[in-house]
C-alpha cells in the first residue's frame, strides 16, 4: 500500500503535470513493485486527512513489540482539489496497483495542446497512476482541478515527518522552477547519523524525450548523474503526443477505429547513471534499457527492462506483464558474471472484485453479484459489438455510459468503475523459497493491508513475519 502522503505527493505531481516516471530511477519500477512490495510488520494504524486542498496531515501508530509512530504534514502550493482523499473513495488501484502504464511524453511542454482530454488525462495518470483504461477518460475528478501554467510552474511542496520515539526527522521540499525543471531537497536528521543528518539534493530536468537528473548528497559527498532517453513509439514521431491522445480518445470512445496499432506498439528507453563519492573516493555506474508498451497498444501490456552494471558485472533482467486486467505478473533474473551468483524472483498480483469476507461484514452478496452480472452483461454486449478491437476496454463502455448519466463531479465514474475491485492479493517467491503474501483491500471505509512472509526452508516455523496495516483518511 502506498502511504497516504505518497499518494498526495503523486496527486501533486499530477496536478502540476510532472511526469515522475520519466527518469532512469523508475526504469524497472513496475517489476520492482510487483516483486519487492513491502510487507507490513506488526500492527500499524494510519490516520490521514487532506484537511484543505493545500494541507494534509497523517498520523501513524505502530507496534512491533515497542510502540512507535510518526506525525507528518504536507503543504502544497497547488490546491489539490478534487483529489479523492477519503479512504472510502480513494481509487484502490491508485493506492495498490503495481503495474504502471507509461505516461504521455511531453505533455507539459505545450500548454494549449490537448484541451479536450490532455491535461485531465495526464493528471488522472499521475494520481490514479494505474487506473487501467483510465487513460483516455474524459475530464476527471482525481487530478481534479487544472492548474494554470503560472501556478504550476512555481508550485512547491513541503513535507515533514517526525518519527517518535527515535526523534528522526524527515523533510522534503519540491520546488518547480519551470515546466521542465524541478528541484527536490530531502533531508534526514537523526542523532545516530554522522554529522547528525544528511541532505540530498536532486535537480530534475524532464524534456519529455529525455530526462536528466543530477544529485548531490552530503553523505560522503556523493555526486551523481542519471539520464533517460526515449525513442521509438510516441517518442519517435514529432507529433507523438497528439497521436497518443487521439488514439486514447478514439479507443476510449471505442469508435472502432481500424487497428493501425495491430503490431506491438511501445516505447524504448535507454539510460544510465554514474555516481562518485568525492569523500570516500568510490563510485558506481549502470546502464539500462527498457521496452514498454504504450497505453495505445492493443495487445497485452508488458514491460521489459535490462540493466547492466559493467563495473560489478551484474546483469538484471525484469519482465512484467499485465496478463489480464485483474492479473499481472513479473519475473526478475539477476546474474553476476564475476562471481557467478544468480538470483531470481517472481511476483504477481491478483485483483478481486469480491468483497473481502463479505458475509461476515454483512454486505449483501446478492446485490454485489447482481451488479457484477449486470456489468458483465453490458460488457459482453459491448465487446460483442466492438469485437476484437481492444480486448482491455471491457469496462470502458460501462464507465462511458455511467459517465454520460452522471455529470462529471466529485462522485466520478472512475471511482465507480474502480469500485468493482475490492481487494488485491499480491504474492512473490524468490530463490531462497521465501514467499511473501499480501492481501490488501477495503472494508467499509478502512483500507487494510495484511501480509505475511513465509520461509519454505523452515517448515516447522514457516511464518517469519506477520503484519496488519490499517488506513483511514478523510
Amino acid at each position, binding site marked *: 500500500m502506498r502511504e497516504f502522503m505518497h499518494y498526495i505527493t503523486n496527486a501533486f505531481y499530477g496536478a502540476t503535470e510532472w511526469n515522475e516516471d520519466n527518469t532512469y530511477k523508475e526504469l524497472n519500477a513496475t517489476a520492482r513493485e510487483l516483486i519487492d512490495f513491502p510487507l507490513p510488520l506488526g500492527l500499524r494504524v494510519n490516520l490521514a486527512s487532506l484537511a484543505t486542498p493545500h494541507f494534509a496531515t497523517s498520523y501513524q501508530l505502530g507496534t512491533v513489540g515497542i510502540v512507535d509512530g510518526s506525525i507528518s504534514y504536507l503543504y502544497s502550493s497547488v490546491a489539490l482539489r478534487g483529489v479523492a482523499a477519503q479512504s472510502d473513495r480513494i481509487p484502490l488501484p491508485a493506492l495498490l496497483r503495481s503495474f504502471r502504464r507509461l505516461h504521455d511524453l511531453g505533455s507539459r511542454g505545450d500548454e494549449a495542446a490537448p484541451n479536450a482530454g490532455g491535461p485531465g488525462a495526464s493528471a488522472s495518470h499521475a494520481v490514479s497512476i494505474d487506473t487501467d483504461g483510465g487513460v483516455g477518460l474524459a475530464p476527471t475528478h482525481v487530478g481534479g482541478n487544472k492548474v494554470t501554467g503560472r501556478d504550476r510552474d512555481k508550485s512547491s511542496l513541503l513535507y515533514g515527518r517526525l518519527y517518535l520515539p527515535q526523534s528522526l526527522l*524527515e523533510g522534503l521540499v519540491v520546488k518547480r522552477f519551470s515546466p521542465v525543471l524541478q528541484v527536490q531537497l530531502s533531508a534526514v536528521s537523526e542523532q545516530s547519523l554522522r554529522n547528525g543528518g544528511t541532505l540530498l539534493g536532486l535537480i530534475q530536468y524532464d524534456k519529455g524525450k529525455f530526462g536528466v537528473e543530477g544529485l548531490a548528497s552530503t553523505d560522503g559527498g556523493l555526486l*551523481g548523474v542519471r539520464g533517460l532517453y526515449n525513442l521509438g513509439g510516441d517518442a519517435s514521431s514529432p507529433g507523438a503526443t497528439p497521436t497518443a491522445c487521439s488514439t486514447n480518445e478514439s479507443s476510449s470512445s471505442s469508435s472502432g477505429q481500424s487497428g493501425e496499432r495491430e503490431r506491438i506498439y511501445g516505447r524504448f528507453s535507454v539510460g544510465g547513471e554514474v555516481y562518485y563519492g568525492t569523500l570516500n573516493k568510490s563510485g558506481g555506474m549502470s546502464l*539500462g534499457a527498457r521496452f514498454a508498451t504504450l497505453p495505445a497498444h492493443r495487445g497485452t501490456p508488458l514491460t521489459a527492462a535490462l540493466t547492466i552494471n559493467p563495473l560489478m558485472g551484474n546483469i538484471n533482467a525484469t519482465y512484467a506483464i499485465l496478463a489480464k486486467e485483474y492479473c499481472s505478473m513479473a519475473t526478475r533474473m539477476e546474474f553476476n558474471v564475476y562471481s557467478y551468483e544468480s538470483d531470481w524472483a517472481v511476483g504477481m498480483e491478483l485483483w478481486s472484485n469480491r468483497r473481502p469476507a463479505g458475509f461476515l461484514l454483512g454486505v449483501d452478496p446478492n446485490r454485489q453479484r447482481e451488479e457484477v452480472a449486470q456489468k458483465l452483461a453490458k460488457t459482453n454486449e459491448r465487446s460483442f459489438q466492438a469485437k476484437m478491437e481492444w480486448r482491455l476496454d471491457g469496462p470502458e463502455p460501462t464507465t462511458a455510459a455511467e459517465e454520460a448519466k452522471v455529470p462529471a463531479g466529485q462522485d466520478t465514474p472512475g471511482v465507480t468503475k474502480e469500485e468493482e475491485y475490492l481487494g488485491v492479493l499480491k504474492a512473490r517467491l524468490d530463490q531462497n523459497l521465501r514467499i511473501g503474501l499480501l492481501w490488501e483491500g477495503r472494508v467499509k471505509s478502512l483500507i487494510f493491508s495484511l501480509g505475511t512472509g513465509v520461509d519454505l526452508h523452515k517448515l516447522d516455523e514457516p511464518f517469519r513475519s506477520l503484519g496488519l496495516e490499517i488506513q483511514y483518511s478523510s
Partner: protein
Amino acid sequence: MAFNFNWSPLTADERFYERARDLLTTALNKSPKPPIIVDDIFVTEFNLGSVPPDLEILEIGDLAEDRFRGIFKMCYSGDAFLTLKTRVQANPLNTYLSAKPSFTSPQPLAAASSLTIPLQITLSEIKLSAFIIVVFSKQKGLTLVFRNDPLESLKVSSTFDSIQFVRDYLQRTIEVKLRDLMMDELPAIIHRLSLQLWCPDQVLKEGDESKEESDPVQNPLGSPPLDAIDASGHLLDPTEISSLSLDGGPGTQSLFSQKSIIQLTSLNGSNHTSCLFTRELHNSMLRAWAGPSDRVDASPTPPLATPSLSRPPSYYGSTHTYTFSDIGSQDTGLLTSRPSSVNLSHATAGLSLGSGRHHKAGRKKKTRVVNLRRKTGSEVSSEAGEAVSDSTSVQGPMSEPAMPTSLLEVPREDEMAVLAGSGPSRVRFRGSSDIAQPTPMQSADTPIVSPNSRDVPITSQLPLRLPQDAGDRGKAVETREPILVDSKSQRSRGGPQSDTSSVILEQAWIMKMAGEIARRVYDEKNRNPAFWEDRDDTPPPAYEAR
C-alpha cells in the same frame, strides 16, 4: 623454582584445535559486523605452531595447589598462523547505501548491485610482546589479561595481495581488529576453554563426558570406610592417575570437584526448599568441623571466600613479612588494591570467624607452600642444573609486594629441611635481606609501621587459637601445632629485628617436619612428575604422617 610449560601437548590434542576454532568463530561473529562483510567469519585453520613463547616470570602473587596468580612477560615470534574465511561486498556503493536512511538515499537503479567476493585471510608471523596477568583457580578457571597492547606486528596475506591498496587497508584494519580481539575477546576465550578443561561441570557438554569417566572411578572409592574417604580417596589417587592419565592430565583434576559440587548443590538446594530430605554427603566434610587431617581435600569445594581464608597464614605465620608486603605494595604501586583488600578481609575474618578455620587454613597454606617449594626444588635438582636460575627468579620477586608472605616461609622451611640446624638463622637472614632489597624508603618505613599492624593479629588470634589447638586437633596436628605457635609467637616476640637465636625445641620440631616434608615430596615426585598435576594430588600430610 621451575615452571614446565608444555607447548606441544596443546597441539597434540586435535580436539583442542577444534574447540579453539569453534570458540574463535563464535567470538568473531558475536559483535555486529561492518556492512562490507556479508557472511559469517569462519576460522578454517588455526595452528599454534611449534615455537613456544618466551615467558619471563615477573611476579607470583599467589601460589597453591588449586590456584595461581602471577605476572609474566611474554615474547612471542613463532610460526603460529590463523586462516579466516568470509565474504565481502566489493561494491562500495552498496555498502555506502546500507547504512544510510532510505529517505535521502539517491536510490540508484543498478549501480549498487552487489558483488560478493570470497575472502581468505591468513595471519602469520605474529609477534607479540606483552605483560600478562594470569589468575588460575580451579573453580573459576584460568583468567588471562594483557596489561598492555600485546601485538607488535603481524603479516596479513589475503586473496587481494596483488592489489596494494587493498592489502594495506586489510593490514591496517586487521591489526586494529586483532588488538581488540587480544584485549577483549581472548581472555574470554581462554577462560571458557579453561572452564571446559578444569571445570567441566560448568560446561554442560563437557561435564557429561567426564562424569562418565568419573563414576566408575568414584564407586570403588566409595566402598572403603566412610570416614576415611578423603584420605583414601587420595590414597587411591596414584592408581587413578596412572589409569586416567592416558586421556589427558586435566581430566583427572575434575573428578573430585565435579562430584562433590553436584552433591553440594543438592544440599544447598535442599536448604532452599522445604524438602525434608537432606542429602548425605559421603565424600566431603565441612571445613569448620574437619580436623587438619581432612583439610587437604577441602580444596575442591571451597566457598567463594577461599582467597581470604587462605591468606591468613601469611598474616600470622610471619607478621613482619606481612607488614613488609603491605608497605612494599604501597610503595611500588603494583597490585595495591589487592593486598590491602586482602588484609582487610584477614582482619575481619580473624576477629569474627572461628579461629579454627583461620588456623586450619593457615596451616594448610603453609604446608602447601612448602610442598610446592620442595617439589619444584626437587624437580629442579633432579631435572637439570637450573637451580641457579630458579633461585634467581625467586630472589627477584621477593621484592614484589604480594609475594613475600609465602616466599618468606617457603625458603625458610626449605632450609630447615636441608640444613636443620641453621634454619632459624636463615630465616632471619632472609628477612633482613628482604628488607634490604627494597628501596631505602621501604626499609625505613618498616619499623615504623610494623608495630602497629603487628598488634592486631597477635592479640586477636593467639588466644583464640590456643584452645582450638588443644581441643580438637588430631594427633598429627598436635605434633605440629605447637611448632607453629611457638615459632610464631617467638617470631612475633622477636620481630624481624630480634637477634635472639632459635629455641632448641623448635629445632627439634623443625627437624621432624622437615623429615616429613622430604618424605612426602619424595613420594609425590615418584608418583607424578608433572607440575600441575602435582598441585592437585598432594596427599594429605596427616595421612602421610600416620
